[in-house]
């Protein structure tokens, strides 16, 4: 058998085409998914040992019925007005101990932000999207107030600081610094959102 001089070269010119084809396939199918949502903490199942007496004026009640209508402090309210009403309630500051509040100091509303509680109650038949929207507005009310204070103190949005603080890639030196700031703003308007059991009528 006569030996060939060398193996014939494979034409690699079409390699790029094949690779492009695969690349385009992966480009099209890839969906870089980022999960996002509203963070909530559920209350622990054990009831606290001591019964705390909360004055009625420190509770901001929000009721949602099965048709998605809102009853806020015994008055029918539109969803778009909820955020403003919640903000007004939270920073009312009737007892005057809250020096950063810009509320009306109405004696029939909350004493100070750390005592103010928002109580949310909904019907079993309420649509989930309505429920989330209401939650969103209430969380938004807290965020608006916290952003305002964070802007005043640190010239920066609270939500921005918090997400940087929670991001594990942030260097620890910055995180330690942010921790105190975030904590301080959080303590100015502590999120007290209680959810009552759903009713079935």
């Amino acid at each position: 058998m006569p030996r060939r001089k060398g193996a014939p070269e494979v034409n690699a010119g079409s390699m790029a085409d094949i690779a492009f084809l695969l690349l385009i396939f992966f480009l099209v199918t890839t969906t870089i998914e980022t999960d996002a949502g509203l963070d909530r903490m559920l209350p622990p199942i054990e009831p606290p040992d001591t019964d705390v007496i909360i004055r009625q004026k420190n509770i901001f009640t929000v009721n949602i019925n099965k048709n998605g209508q809102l009853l806020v402090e015994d008055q029918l309210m539109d969803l778009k007005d909820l955020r403003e009403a919640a903000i007004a309630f939270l920073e009312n500051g009737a007892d005057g101990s809250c020096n950063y509040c810009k509320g009306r100091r109405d004696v029939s509303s909350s004493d100070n932000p750390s005592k103010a509680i928002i109580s949310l109650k909904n019907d079993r038949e309420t649509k989930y999207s309505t429920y989330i929207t209401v939650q969103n507005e209430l969380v938004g009310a807290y965020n608006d107030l916290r952003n305002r204070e964070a802007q005043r103190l640190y010239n920066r949005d609270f939500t921005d600081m918090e997400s940087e603080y929670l991001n594990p890639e942030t260097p620890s030196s910055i995180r330690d610094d942010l921790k105190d700031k975030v904590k301080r703003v959080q303590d100015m308007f502590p999120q007290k959102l209680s959810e009552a059991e759903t009713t079935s009528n």
Partner: protein
Amino acid sequence: MRKTKKRIPSVSTASLPDIVFMLLFFFMTVTTIKDTEMLVENKLPEATELSELDKKDRIIEIFVGKPTAKYSNVLGTEPKIQLNKKLFNIEDVRTYVLSELAKKPEGIRNLVTVSLKIDENVHVGLVSDIKKELQDVNLLKINYAAIQGNYTSVLD
């Protein structure tokens, strides 16, 4: 100048496959092919005050919604709970969640968040049942999955 070059030197394309392959490998490694087939409808509600959930390994997902059109003639139209790849009843949620929790490394067990991916047409009653189950097993960090959007669409 009258004198022109006889030939324009051609750009070598020999390294093109290498570049493309590099991109290809990047996308191949980044891509996560979703292996859970959705048995329930899952159109998430819209919200604006979102916080992002990174760290996939610290999440337990619970899907709730009506069975998809493909299964609705068998399963009916009542909302169902999908855990992993199967549908479960409300009583089984705690068993599933605990078994998922046991699979996580011990160090991060108290950091686990339950991501509730609930279709916007589900009623809150079922959601609060799930929340009660989670409370019973002391998994208190939850996240209502939502997409960034304009909440006013709910008003119409």
